[in-house]
């Protein structure tokens, strides 16, 4: 008979493999986009606009997932869109974790005035509607990949700061921290060598989640037409275009949406799976 822990570990295993598999596939496809994509993602052909996907009778060979209203290949645009999505995720995620995590660690471990300032800032940040905040920041910073990444870091650091602060406060109250202090560890060394490793599993799970959120934010900004140029292949941009022609060509919306859905789900499940696997209590 399986005990509860065994069941959880088995489920975590399946989760890790499935989500990790999709992310690996996506990374590979994004890296080799020029080789994998069957068509030029920017090539327009008004004569073959809104071609349906391959299983339909009107489909044309070479355009597996159909074309949009300008005759651009949907599959190729989804593949190139993965590049943008993953670039944003892989830069914005770790950067947000680094800044938010550091601030949370300082606030939670040192307490005092540092905590007061950081917590007040978090309160102010939480009073902004995040989507509106990001759109506002893009209006200030201008469109482009760097602006998107910067906007995500500026908005989402609070997510890490809050969780890591709470965790650091919990850890700071434990005996091993007092022991480290007695053993003559400096405050800084206690924080980095004792607290940080114990906060790490939470931080990693949160990072994976944040990478999924970064993908969503990029899609939302492209959706309201504030990300890259309108021509560039992004999932959000494709979704925005598909939304307007949904009754004529549902596939323009559906395929980037499926890619987005699986990616966001995989990032969050991957993080949860990692956390379960590395959680010392469960192990």
């Amino acid at each position, binding site marked *: 008979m399986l005990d509860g822990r065994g069941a959880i570990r088995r489920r975590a295993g399946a989760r890790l493999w499935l989500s990790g598999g999709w992310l690996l596939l996506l990374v590979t496809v994004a890296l080799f986009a020029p080789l994998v994509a069957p068509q030029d993602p920017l090539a327009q052909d008004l004569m073959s606009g809104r071609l349906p996907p391959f299983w339909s009778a009107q489909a044309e060979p070479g355009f597996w997932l159909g074309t949009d209203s300008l005759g651009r290949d949907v599959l190729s645009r989804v593949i190139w869109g993965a590049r943008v999505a993953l670039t944003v995720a892989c830069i914005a995620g770790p950067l947000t974790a680094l800044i938010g995590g550091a601030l949370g660690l300082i606030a939670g471990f040192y307490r005092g005035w540092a905590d007061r300032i950081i917590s*007040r*800032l978090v*309160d*102010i940040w*939480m*009073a*902004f*509607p*995040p*989507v*509106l905040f990001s*759109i*506002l*920041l893009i*209006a*200030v910073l*201008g469109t482009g990949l760097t602006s998107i990444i910067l906007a995500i870091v500026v908005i989402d650091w609070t997510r890490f700061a809050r969780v890591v602060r709470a965790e650091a406060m919990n850890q700071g109250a434990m005996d091993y921290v007092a022991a480290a202090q007695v053993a003559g560890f400096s405050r800084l060394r206690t924080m980095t060598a004792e607290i940080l490793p114990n906060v790490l599993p939470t931080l990693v799970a949160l990072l994976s989640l944040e990478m*999924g*959120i970064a993908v*969503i934010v990029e*899609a*939302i900004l492209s*959706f*309201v037409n504030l990300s890259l140029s309108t021509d560039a292949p992004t999932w959000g941009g494709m*979704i925005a275009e598909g*939304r307007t022609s*949904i*009754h004529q060509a*549902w596939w323009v*919306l*559906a395929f980037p*949406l499926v890619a*987005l*859905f699986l990616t*966001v*789900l995989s990032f*969050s*499940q991957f993080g*949860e799976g990692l956390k379960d696997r590395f959680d010392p209590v469960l192990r």
Partner: protein
Amino acid sequence: MLFLQRLLWRLATTAVTLFGVAVIVFTVVRVVPGNPIAMMLPPGATDADVARLKALYGLDRSIPQQFLIWGWGVLHGDFGTSISLRQPVLGLVLGRLPATLELATMALVMAVLMGGAAALTATRHRGTRVEAGIDVTNGVALSIPDFLWGLLLIIIFGVLMPVFDISGRVSPDLKLPFTTQFYLVESILRLRFDITADLLGHMFMPALALAIPLAAIIGQVLKQSLKETMELDYVTLARTKGYGETRVILREALRNAILPTLTLVGVQFTFLIGGTVIVERLFSYEGLGNMAIDAVINRDLPLIQGIVLCFALIFTGVNLVVDLTYAALNPRLRHA
């Protein structure tokens, strides 16, 4: 006494938070490139015209000066005039706010019903495939944000089974005999159920998109809380009295399991309200969030400030109420 202290302290921190929001949004919108004045004037306007218009909107002064003038006005209920719509900001915000509040409230009700049903069903069928299925569904529902649920619903109910309207708040051909902007409430009060039905048809999908992630959180937390309660002695006692399992859950366990869920719902509700911005955009629902995105695109500084401040007021207000309710209900905090 202690409660009063807490109340005053929380009011003070809320005021600081709102002030911080005001400073940040005021500064941020003023470094926005793109001149709103230039967008208002017809081509061929002279420099003198530009200067006159700038003076009219107070944009010729320094940023701290502008902030003081604006802040003074806000404290007196004057939020300035929208540059793109040329109407007072307060009126515009109050005109759109009811639509957003109705949507958010509807979403909250749906989330509580769905999450509650999921938690109760999972508890009733503990340890079976039903519980495992609900857990997996909750996990997926939680991982996917409202924006994606909205798109998914558009495909399912807008295209495959076109039963609901996918854009707007109300059918444009309907004549609305209303005096307030609370269409849904007013249509019910005036017994115009044809309009109520139309409003609900428009509201269903955006509200559901907002509700799904929150429903998942409610489902998880309430289930966990029920699980702990179900192991308490008084529940076992109720069972030995011969009460059925369903009755034990509903009449005995639920009452004590519900408090942690309630406080959580309060905090998560602010996230839901934040989600209305993009969901309203997605469904072309004429609420505050949709207007906010237009305001940013049009560089309408006074309107952006007004809307952000309105959202901040709602967020901090909800948090304040939740915090104080929790303090009032939790005996440990009351006597601490």
